[in-house]
């Protein structure tokens, strides 16, 4: 294992100390794994809390700030946060208008957030929850835990955060979060596995000349292992899977070409060129692109493509000002 770390047992707290030092505008508790925006709680505003296992940086802590999340709960690497963290974050940001929990659809995240929501209700905080499950690689059936929450989590957090910033009520913010999730799909491909620091060994093995299609974001193996292909073919496989599940022809879309952590930005742009060409060739119009490592899986190489079918309202909220460590614009 070659990692830029001090102690495999303390990577999450050590990274949060760095986040705190680099972004003094955030209130970071490295020991308890919570990151809260400085002006919380904001009276009368709906607050957004998300979280999950660490190892996906900048998700979620890098999206805390104006126009996006009010707080993030950072679990151990690839391990959901515990109810204590979630309740602490929820209480820190509650401004009396309710709190939205944005939860990626993994059994651990769902169970811990559910326990925290019950505790919050004991504190008379109104909590709504939205489950993000955009990953088309998993068949959503009685025979799986359901689709995973992946790249579209960023879309949900940005757009719901913008609506909350405008002063909308909890039901409206929860409703638009669900709408974004329902209009979004993702598909990922791994070219190399990743190593959880505390485990010290890669989570799976890929031989030379192989790649893993339909991966999640926790270093878990994917849907199938196939011969390594070029960027055009990888993008074609990804977008074909998305298009088969949610036809894209005739839609105006937001596209994220997301590096998984170990793939250079140059290659992500090569993939984006292929994606833009593919979408144009299949009758979709890209109105908002985003390229970069936003929802990562430690040092895994590969990419994930996420697509959201926009409406004028969703586009307006996507464009709204945002000021976080990882996403920042004032259009």
């Amino acid at each position: 294992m070659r990692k830029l770390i001090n102690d495999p047992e303390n990577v999450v707290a050590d990274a949060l100390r760095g986040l705190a030092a680099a972004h003094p505008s955030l209130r970071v508790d490295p020991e308890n794994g919570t990151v809260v925006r400085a002006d919380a709680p904001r009276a009368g505003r709906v607050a957004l809390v998300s979280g999950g296992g660490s190892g996906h940086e900048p998700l979620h802590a890098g999206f805390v700030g104006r126009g996006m999340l009010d707080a993030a709960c950072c679990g151990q690497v690839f391990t959901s946060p515990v109810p204590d963290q979630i309740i602490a974050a929820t209480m820190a940001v509650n401004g009396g208008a309710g709190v939205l929990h944005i939860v990626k659809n993994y059994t651990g995240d769902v169970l811990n957030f559910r326990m925290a929501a019950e505790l919050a209700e004991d504190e008379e905080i109104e909590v709504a929850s939205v489950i993000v499950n955009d990953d088309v690689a998993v068949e959503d059936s009685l025979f799986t835990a359901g689709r995973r929450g992946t790249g579209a989590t960023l879309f949900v957090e940005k757009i719901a955060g913008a609506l909350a910033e405008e002063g909308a009520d909890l039901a409206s913010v929860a409703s638009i979060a669900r709408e974004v999730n329902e209009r979004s799909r993702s598909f990922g491909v791994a070219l190399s596995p990743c190593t959880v620091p505390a485990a010290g060994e890669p989570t799976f093995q890929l031989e030379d000349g192989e790649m893993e299609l339909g991966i999640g974001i926790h270093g878990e193996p994917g849907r199938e292992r196939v011969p390594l292909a070029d960027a055009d073919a990888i993008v074609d496989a990804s977008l074909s899977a998305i298009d088969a599940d949610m036809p894209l022809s005739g839609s105006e879309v937001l596209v994220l070409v997301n590096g998984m952590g170990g793939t250079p930005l140059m290659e992500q742009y090569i993939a984006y060129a292929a994606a833009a060409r593919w979408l144009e060739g299949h009758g979709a119009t890209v109105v908002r692109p985003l390229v970069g490592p936003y929802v990562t899986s430690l040092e895994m190489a590969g990419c994930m493509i996420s697509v959201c079918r926009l409406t004028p309202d969703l586009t307006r909220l996507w464009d709204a000002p945002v000021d976080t460590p990882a996403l920042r614009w004032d259009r």
Partner: protein
Amino acid sequence: MGEHLDARGAAAWIRHAAELVTADAGRLTRLDAAIGDGDHGHNLDRGFTAAVAALPDEAELAGTRPGKVLIAAGRAIVSKTGGASGPLYGTALRRAGKAFGDASEADAAAVGEALKAALDGIQELGQANEGDKTMIDALAPAAAAYRDALASGAGLAACARAAADAAEAGADATVPMQARKGRASYLGPRSTGHLDPGAASTALVLRALADVTGRE
């Protein structure tokens, strides 16, 4: 240990379960890496270590009840474990503790009821059934074997041994199963051929109960 589980016995169970989990953490993590995300042993080790830290000390144990001990351990596990295992194991121990009520010691029948309560709690929360390749595949046969042993007149230690044996057989039987719950379900047919890590750790916790109740 005799035929009853008192507060000291419940604490000994948690402590021994923690020892077994710590000793086997590497194997549990490797099992998880094959079909999940490779952190089960590590997380459970952290959770059970926290449960041991939350146990009443020797002096306090004399004045408390086994139900309270299990509830405290369960709360610590929920607080420190994370993942699905935290809520599932924590709920199991809290439900088992609640099943003991205020009794100062639990007899063989009460321990059987507590196992059933733990099973019900896990099924309610995780919505898994037998055959889904989860911890239920160890715990459900264990609870059934315990009940059968009790019905045939066995005492606490023999019932617990039957439960541990059934849990180990149940865990082994997950190897050919295709996962339908949890992270392994994402693999579909590729999840077959691997022992489920949650079933494996459940067997450890039940073996700890058998060891502790079997002590003279």
